[in-house]
């Protein structure tokens, strides 16, 4: 019995290996993988290049040298951002403004406290009316109210006014948001975090996720339909394991290909960006960066995990669906359009106000988690309120699991006409 199980496992592994060979030996797939690698490298370069800072003489530098200088300068403020520290930063900001001989020198002089300056700007601007100069004008004493202001802004401007931004929250949702805000542990810890900000708060990551899913779509769309396209279906389905384990091996190969390519791309991109810009700041709350009003009380590292796992679930769901379509329609071309349609179309359809709420439930939202963490997307299930992503991830994971037997039983019953 034990021998039989070992033998079966080896057999299935071998089948998966052959299925992987079918995918990766295809010339078109090799080309799209090379294109994807090039995109990752170019994307990493552009992300790194976006980190800029001024030298003491007011000239601008970017990339690795900028990151080195910023790390050195910003880590002067490393530690808890207490009321005193915030006041000190505001005072220093205003002192630099007053003493600088040129705008470049002013920007160079205060770039070490730019993140804290940004917190004050966001905290004391009206929501939706961001004012870049608030920190330059605010009274130093007033800056101490930064954390209270965050909560009061939520109560007064976001959930208090029903007309505002057409956002209407139920009582339970309001309580949830207030509770989340109150749960944020202050004073926030601060240190240099340009690497994480560049990685998660820029447009490059969601774009790369969309490109990745479309390219993986190319790879896996033929797993099922190619048997028909190549007319290899007759032999495949007339073999002993052709209607059971061989079908399972196809699904597993698809799953492995999605997993391997997705995580390779994401880990490579993250490793290059963080390797160059630095891993520092992983423990900082995302509110310390550009997500001041986020209801998610998570660190940048947790943000990365959430973003990556969400993206992975979206990849699994959308690409499993593409495989199902490939098996049902027997057309690789039709299957290839699925990842493209599901990752891009909802973005545009979501701009139609009637469809916005519906589009928020589409799986493409999981490809852009880091960009939506400061948006108040909540949903109520069974009287409990959750952040949208904490619902979407398990729901799409469950849907993916439900697609698997549909794919298996649908394909194994295929007839060769």
């Amino acid at each position, binding site marked *: 019995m034990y021998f039989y199980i070992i*033998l079966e496992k*080896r*057999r299935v592994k*071998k*089948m998966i290996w*052959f299925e992987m*060979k*079918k995918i990766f*030996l*295809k*010339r078109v797939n090799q080309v799209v993988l090379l294109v994807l690698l090039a995109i990752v490298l170019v994307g990493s370069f552009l992300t790194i290049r976006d980190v800029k800072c001024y030298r003491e003489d007011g000239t601008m530098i970017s990339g690795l040298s900028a990151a080195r200088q910023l790390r050195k300068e910003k880590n002067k403020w490393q530690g808890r951002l207490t009321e005193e520290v915030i006041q000190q930063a505001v005072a220093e900001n205003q002192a630099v403004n007053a003493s600088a001989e040129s705008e470049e020198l002013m920007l160079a002089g205060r770039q070490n406290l730019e993140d804290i300056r940004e917190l004050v700007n966001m905290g004391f601007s009206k929501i939706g009316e961001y004012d870049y100069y608030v920190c330059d004008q605010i009274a130093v004493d007033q800056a101490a109210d930064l954390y209270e202001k965050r909560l009061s802004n939520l109560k007064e401007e976001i959930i208090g006014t029903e007309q505002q931004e057409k956002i209407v929250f139920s009582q339970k949702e309001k309580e949830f948001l207030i509770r989340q805000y109150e749960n944020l542990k202050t004073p926030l810890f601060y240190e240099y975090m340009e690497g994480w900000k560049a990685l998660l708060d820029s447009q490059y990551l969601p774009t790369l996720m969309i490109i990745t899913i479309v390219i993986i779509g190319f790879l896996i769309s033929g797993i099922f339909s190619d*048997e028909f396209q*190549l*007319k*290899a*279906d*007759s*032999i*495949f*389905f*007339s*073999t*002993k*394991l*052709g*209607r*059971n*384990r*061989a079908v399972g091996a196809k699904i597993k190969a698809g799953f492995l290909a999605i997993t391997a390519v997705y995580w390779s791309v994401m880990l490579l991109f993250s490793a290059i960006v963080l390797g160059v810009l630095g891993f520092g700041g992983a423990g900082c709350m995302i509110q310390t960066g550009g997500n001041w009003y986020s209801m998610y009380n998570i660190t940048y590292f947790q943000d990365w995990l959430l973003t990556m796992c969400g993206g992975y679930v979206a990849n699994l769901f959308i690409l499993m669906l593409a495989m199902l379509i490939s098996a049902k329609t027997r057309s690789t071309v039709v299957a290839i359009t699925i990842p493209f349609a599901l990752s891009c179309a909802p973005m545009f359809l979501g701009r139609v106000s009637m469809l916005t709420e519906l589009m928020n439930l589409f799986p493409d939202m999981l490809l852009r988690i880091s960009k939506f963490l400061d948006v108040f997307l909540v949903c109520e299930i069974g009287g409990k309120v959750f952040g949208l992503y904490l619902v979407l991830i398990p729901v799409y994971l469950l849907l993916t699991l439900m697609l698997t037997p549909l794919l298996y039983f649908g394909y194994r019953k295929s*007839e*060769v*006409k």
Partner: protein
Amino acid sequence: MELNITNLTKEFAGMQAVNHLNITMGSGVYGLLGVNGAGKTTLMRMLCTLLHPTSGEITCDGKEIFAMDGEYRKLLGYLPQDFGFYPEFTVENYLHYIATIKGLRPVVAQKRVKEMIGAVGLKKAAHKKMKKLSGGMKRRAGIAQAMLNDPKILILDEPTAGLDPNERIRFRNLISELAEERLVLLSTHIVSDVEYIANEILLMRDGKLVHRGTAKELIDSMQQQVWKCYINKNEVGHLLKKYKISNMKSDAQGVEVRIISEEKPIPNAVLEEANLEDVFLYYFGEKAGEENDMV
């Protein structure tokens, strides 16, 4: 090993591709002859569990083949008419893959792949990609995959289609060698293919079995005789309309024609010994001559 086909029917959009067919087959080589659209491929696909019958059943040693599932397919070797493969695989890789999905144990698969590559004469091409093989070599790879599991039932659908005469002869010999102690069902519309190797020939038309027997029995079953005569070229049209012509050969003097007819078609006609091609024309003549340009 006995395959029993009982009242088998397959309909496609109201058209009966196989129509209440009843056949019993044991070990031996069976040649399935019929014009295009006779239902040969549909029958073979049902025998390979690729298509479900609309009604009727197929049993293997008394067990329904669809219920047997993998246990039945374990006995099966199939070479389809359109032999599809994975173009980027080498011959060896391809055969290893098929051996795996046929459920062969790795050690057995290793041995059988090597044996079959040798048996079909593809040793030199074993590491060539499938897409680089010639038509004949692809067919040989096809027969090799069908034979990997040493099948008790071997189903070959138009195995010699598209092959040059040398390849066809080689292929026929190969099938003859492999045919021992198994059931081989060979479909073709090239009469000479089955004439040499089939123990029994099944004639199919419009989804039905119209006749079965050995080549001699089928020839004897003809109700008409075969005549050979020389005619002028201008008489050909008239004869074509009136008789079934199984062969024509032109030369400077006129045309030598082979006519199937109950009575002497023209005074100088000479009685000839019938062959299987004449039988084919006798049973399928109308379709072969008028619609499908067969024979």
